[in-house]
């Protein structure tokens, strides 16, 4: 019988991840309130608070699952998730339209593609722990991890959800880089990815599929009009100047891309209202969170924990970077949310699960 000393436990429970994300969450709620107060979405922030609380609850639950347990079930979770992805394609086709969701009855819906990001990291973590953990990898060693990543990525792109599919490949790239891939292999892999990617887009997809993918990712307009949202976003951000226009002073409400200013374009509202100073502070919060993950990955005792920590960081990082890049006009507009700031529940739960797992890994050094 292990007696758990509650006081001791709380003392050793690593709160840093939840505290840091909490700070960003507060910014998110205030921003959401400000962005929507003058629109038909007013009041939506209250709903978002409930979603935050629910996601936080899930995150804390996950933080009590020991990394050992995750390690044990990681392949099983991975396979289950793949099955769910296939199921979504089959059932989704019958239902016409929503192909990303699995209806579990009532209001509960489940989006396997979001979950896939996490289960893939766990599975890759396990594989890399078991295989060649101590030497640099060549391309030939990578066959299985490549398959493990490309199968779900392909299934998700077919859904079609190009944004999430590509994120999965980027996360995979981060992990492989971290797991000491030979420099030569990195180069070859990068080139190969570039060539197949562009080849697929040029010849693999039919014209209407391309258009469908683009309009799907950016429903407001089609291929040639998509510059419009980006430019409006850039104007909004630029007009914020050094200190911003102040809370609730965003002119976004008068612009035409209203339906998205609380989701994918939340960051441009934030920038317009709080200016350069505000965004420096927000980015500092994000960067410190990511560095906390990096620090965690090299302060743990197990290879699995280390790889998973880095993988979780890369999920959050890529979402943040791509979203910020697209609203500032650096990257094409693909529909990825900004973690903790954009409105929405399903992705938020996954981001919180990431924090929960990190906390659990951190705790495992001290508690057990």
């Amino acid at each position, binding site marked *: 019988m292990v007696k758990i000393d509650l006081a001791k436990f709380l003392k050793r429970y690593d709160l840093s991840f939840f505290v840091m994300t909490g700070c960003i969450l507060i910014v998110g709620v205030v921003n959401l309130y400000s962005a929507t107060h003058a629109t038909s979405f007013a009041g939506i922030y209250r709903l978002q608070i409930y979603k935050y609380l629910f996601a936080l609850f899930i995150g804390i639950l996950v933080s009590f699952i020991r990394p050992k347990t995750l390690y044990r079930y990681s392949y099983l979770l991975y396979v289950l998730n793949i099955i769910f992805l296939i199921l979504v394609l089959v059932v989704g086709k019958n239902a016409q339209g929503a192909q990303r969701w699995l209806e579990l009855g009532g209001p509960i819906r489940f989006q396997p593609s979001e979950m896939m990001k996490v289960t893939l990291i766990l599975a890759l973590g396990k594989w890399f722990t078991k295989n060649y953990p101590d030497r640099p990898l060549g391309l030939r060693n990578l066959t299985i991890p490549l398959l493990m990543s490309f199968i779900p990525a392909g299934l998700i792109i077919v859904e079609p959800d190009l944004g999430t599919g590509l994120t999965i490949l980027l996360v995979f790239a981060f992990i492989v880089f971290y797991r000491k891939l030979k420099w030569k292999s990195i180069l070859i892999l990068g080139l190969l990815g570039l060539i197949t990617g562009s080849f697929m887009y040029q010849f693999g997809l039919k014209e209407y599929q391309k258009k469908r993918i683009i309009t799907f990712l950016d429903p407001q307009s089609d291929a040639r009009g998509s510059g419009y949202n980006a430019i*409006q976003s850039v104007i909004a951000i630029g007009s914020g100047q050094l200190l911003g226009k102040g809370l609730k002073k965003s002119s976004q409400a008068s612009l035409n891309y209203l339906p998205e200013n609380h989701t994918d374009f939340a960051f441009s509202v934030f920038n317009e209202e709080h200016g350069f100073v505000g965004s420096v502070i927000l980015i500092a919060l994000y960067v410190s969170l990511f560095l906390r993950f990096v620090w965690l990955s090299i302060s*743990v005792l197990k290879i699995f924990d280390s790889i998973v920590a880095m993988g979780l960081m890369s999920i959050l990082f890529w979402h943040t970077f791509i979203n910020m890049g697209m609203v*500032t006009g650096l990257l094409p507009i693909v529909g990825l949310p900004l973690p903790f700031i954009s409105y929405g529940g399903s992705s938020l739960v996954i981001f919180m699960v990431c924090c929960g797992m990190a906390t659990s890994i951190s705790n495992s050094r001290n508690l057990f």
Partner: protein
Amino acid sequence: MFAEEEIVKSHRLRATGLGNIVLIAFGIILSRLWYLQIYHGQLYLEYSLKNRLRKEIIRAPRGMLYDRNGVLLVNNVPRFDATITPQYIKNKKLTFKRLANILDMKAQSIYKIMAKNSTLPRYKSIVIKKNISRREVAIIETENDQLPGVSVDTFISREYIDKEVGAHVFGYISEINSGQLPKFKKSSAFDYKQGDFIGQFGLEEKWDLNLRGTNGFEFVEVDALGRKKRHIGNDNLFKGIEGLPSRPGKNANLSIDRRMQLAAYEALGDWVGSVVAVKVDTGEVLAMVSKPSFDPSQFSRGLTSEYWNSLVSNDKNPLRDRTVQEHYSPGSTFKLVTAITALEEGIIDPQTELFCNGSLTLGRKTYHCWRKLGHGKVNMTKAIQQSCNIYFQKLAKKMDIDVLAKYAQMLGFGTKTEVGLPREVSGLIPTKEWKFKRNGVPWQLGETLSCAIGQSYILASPLQLAMAYSVIANGGTLYRPYIVKRISSNTGKGDEVFNPEVVRHVQFKPSTIDTIKNGLFAVVNRPGGTAYGSRGSGIRMAGKTGTSQVIRMSKEKLFAKCEKNPYKIRNHGVFVAYLPANDPKIAVSVVIEHGCHGASSAAPIAKKVGEVYMKHYQSQLQQKIFDIEKKERALHLAIQQKIKEEEEEDW
């Protein structure tokens, strides 16, 4: 354990590398933000205050409809709406007052409209008055400076050249309603959007995807007062943003002949009913009108509630297409099927005579002929000519209802014709199985007797009747009727031509077809024929009259004068014909609701439609028939003269 810790430690360099990637990535974001917010901040601030880029949809012109000779039937015309964009209004009171003056309405009603739409975003324009005159447009445009926030929106409205004539065939378009939107999104390859106009009836509905074209869009720069600048400024910010031109919808060439269509509509007069004319050897629909009708132009011009209410509250239901969306008891016109069945199944020989004494008793029920005293001895030709009920009911006694149904189905009864109009009805041909399923009671012989003369359960649409008579007229081919002959775009790409489609060939004995043709000819052209009154000069019709009972009538009522009955229970008049009788080209079916008799109400209308056809397509033949008839009349006169003389001599 120790080794594993070492391995983790050995990753430190890569971890630092990834940490640096994170720092560099956000360094890029921050420098971009610095560039936008500090370096160009003032510029963007000015943009956000003074200029707006607005995306405007360019609506694609809908395809036009032409008749078979290339005459324009449905067209597009520009229409103007006066709108207000709340965002740009400076002085509410003054603006509303001025606008109210121009539009000849009360300022109060503008407030009301604005209040109704107060939940919309402020940049969205609100329509104040639809379909304003050119004069009003001109005033608003010239007083633009004094009316900030007021603008004139243009869009293309649908114009139906002949208004009510053929409205049911062409259909109408109106704004997609919120209930339809999700349905269309799911079921169609086309991306329908809120505010789109879609076909809601007739050909407009059925061919919407072809007719609608693809909307384009353009970007316009507007100043702080919402006034458009003609072109996007040539500075670097908005450069390179292109619009997309709209692609007009495809035009459709119809098989309809406008002249026949107009003639049919006019001939219907004040009757409630419908006319269908088809080409017997192709299935092309030449004319298709239903009355009462509606003006489809009204729908795309923004339907007024008064007009809508007048349509909905009208108990004659102008919105129903009586040619395909309504079915009737075909009455005696269905004797065609009974005759075919009897001749093909060998139940009777064409020359065999049966006796009609005016009634027929089966069990406890007595069936009456329409002529109280009966027709005496009649053979097949005479029975058709005089529409003797008892003759056909005597044949029906020897018939199995399922056999009758088989022949009816061969002629296209009981199934949709697939003419390509929405909500077509299939009519009804009963069978034993059908009745047992429906009522749980077996079929009775008495019902066969009623069915044999087109009453009881049997239902057919006017179009089905025309198609069935076409089969006899062309010697045994059932075609699929069709209206759209060609779909063509301005570019000539993706043109489609539609050709006649044979549904089935029926193999009737030549003698059967000859006997029936003789009978049908006699109906119109021999003394004693039920439609002898509609025999024409220059036109040789063959046809069959019918009377469709609205309710079951007692004997007294049956022989009472129909016109004296209340309107609602008067019989429907039916007449189906083909012409010219010796070389049939077209078939016409006319159904007049509560018209009492087919001969008096429906047949004259068919004749008028036929005359228009003869005039335009068979003028030579018509002339010949004229000449023959002249000779006949002369001969007739001569004979009369001779008889008279002989009689005088005898005397």
